[in-house]
């Protein structure tokens, strides 16, 4: 085997190609078994939910495995309209979209100033932002509820947007801070010499350079805000429902009405779009995790 390899290999190099030993194969085999097992634990519930979303309640209870007798797409129609998932989906899109744009802009701005300018109080502001990450959100909820009520922002999307921005800001600044710190300073200096002001330098030079960092933070912020449950349930209980709220309300109803097919359909509607987007962009995301942790 090794002789064969050597003759094939380009001359001059010691052949280092792996020749798998018996123990290697055992390790690799066991590894695959473990990983496949975990993958199955992850995927099976999702597939089962997807399959059940086409069944009637009676079929779901008759057998958890049997395929639906007919593929009931009307489960989806009922979930979308009667359970209000469609409306909530739209609300969530507006809410998360607006919050995301705002928090990325404001987060990039303050991270940039904190990372690249020296001034008295810089460190204090940075630590204050970090501290916001460690306190449980719950502690703020009760006073926030009363505050928004006084500001007439309770149960409004606008109040939610501002709160989302506030709570996502800490993470955004924390992540982008190191990113801006590591951007080369020469280019900004060159821009200053050419007469570009601070504003122009930021928007035309620094922000475009920070694109990879911005993209990864945006992905994590999107997931975090899209999945948010506690904040809307507290300060938006009577407002325009967001997706997670609608889903919870629908599941809660299940205690009385029995439409499990539609419940599974509602869960599927919630899961599929983000999952598909993730699968498309997963390479980008894997890269961003390593960027985020290696600094």
């Amino acid at each position, binding site marked *: 085997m090794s002789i064969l390899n050597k003759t094939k290999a380009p001359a001059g190099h010691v052949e280092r*190609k*792996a*020749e798998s030993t018996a123990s*290697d194969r055992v390790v*690799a085999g066991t*590894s*695959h078994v473990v*990983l496949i097992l975990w*993958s199955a634990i*992850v*995927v099976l*519930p999702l597939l089962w*939910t997807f399959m059940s979303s086409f069944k009637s309640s009676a079929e779901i*209870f008759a057998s*958890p495995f049997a395929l639906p007798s007919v593929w009931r797409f009307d489960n989806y129609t009922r979930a979308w309209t009667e359970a209000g998932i469609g409306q909530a989906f739209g609300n969530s899109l507006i809410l998360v979209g607006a919050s995301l744009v705002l928090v990325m802009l404001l*987060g990039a*701005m*303050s991270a*940039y*100033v904190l990372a690249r*300018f020296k*001034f008295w*109080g*810089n460190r*204090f*502001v940075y630590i204050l932002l970090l501290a*916001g990450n*460690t306190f*449980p959100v*719950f*502690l*703020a*909820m*009760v*006073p926030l*509820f009363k505050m928004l009520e006084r500001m007439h922002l309770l149960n409004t999307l606008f109040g939610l947007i*501002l709160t989302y921005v*506030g709570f996502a800001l800490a993470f955004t*600044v924390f992540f982008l801070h190191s990113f801006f710190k590591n951007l080369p300073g020469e280019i900004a200096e060159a821009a200053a010499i050419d007469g570009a002001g*601070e*504003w122009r330098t930021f928007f035309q030079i620094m922000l475009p350079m920070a694109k990879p960092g911005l993209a990864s933070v945006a992905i994590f912020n999107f997931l975090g805000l899209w999945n948010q*449950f*506690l904040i809307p349930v*507290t300060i938006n209980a009577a407002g325009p429902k967001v997706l*997670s709220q609608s*889903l*919870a309300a629908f*599941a809660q109803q*299940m*205690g009385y009405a029995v439409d499990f097919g539609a*419940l599974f359909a509602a869960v599927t509607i*919630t*899961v599929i779009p*983000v999952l598909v987007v993730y699968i498309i962009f*997963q390479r980008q995301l*894997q890269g961003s*995790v*390593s960027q985020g*942790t*290696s600094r």
Partner: protein
Amino acid sequence: MTLPVPGTTTGGGLPAAAPRRRKQLTWDKVSFMLVFLGVPLVIYGLFVVWPFLQAFYYSLTDWSGFSPKFNFVGLANYVKIFQDDLFLKALGNNILLLIVVPLVTIVLSLALAVVVTVGGSSKGQVKGLKGSSFYRVVSFFPYTIPAIAIGIMWGQIYDPSGGLLNGLLRAMGLQNFKDFAWLGNSNTAMFASMFVIIWGFVGFYMVLFIAGIKGIPAELYEAARIDGAGRFRTAVSLTIPMIRDNIQTAYVYLGILALDAFVYMAALFPNAGGPENTTLVMSQQLFFTAFQRGQFGTATAMGVVMAVATLIFSGLVFLVNRLTGGKDQELV
């Protein structure tokens, strides 16, 4: 309320200010700093810092939340909640979550990450398992799903008669599980819930650890191999110490999550608390106390207890990491 205003912006409101500074403060620079730092900090201060500060104050009052008037009662709320059996029960449940969830999640995700990254051949270059990116992508799926959806989904999976779990167990011939109510039995409800949370996070931390492991220089692995270290030894003595900081971060975040756990418990148990309150958590008690009972003062005191528990926990994690961190320093 007071917002932290950076020195330069207050000191140099006008372009003519402060010739002693190294660089001239132009209007361009001042307006830039004011807007860039000011606007985000106003929102952050108003919607995050200020409510947190208020919470500490309200926890010392008997405010109902609905009347404008309230009295200062000192530590009475704290005395009350620490004599409240239900809250203590919830605190205990949170501590149980705090012990089990981060530990199991990290051990599992670390094991999977190690297997994926260095599970390949023991000869030649150190490399990962074939098809590792497939496992990585699939494991990350749950992280993209809203927690509430995860909770509802698992609530159905655990369903005694129509659920996937009992269906599988019956298919394997275990007829004892014909109608076993995983979430209805006080012995299993908590562990079943823990599994749901762990399921949701293993993939995320696995990806995080994989990124950390890939950042370890390959020479170190080759050196370990030349020194005759086996796979297990390499994982324990090289990989884990090298990604120590990632593990610490994961521990803190999972701890914060375990001290909250509101979404999962709310989704899994429509009747808050579960069987014999075995899955009642502090956040649920807080929510109930504030918005159903109308005792905002008492509720914020519970919030403060949660915050203190979080800080103690984070402090402990940092301390343990610091105390056991001696070897790590030498290695680097």
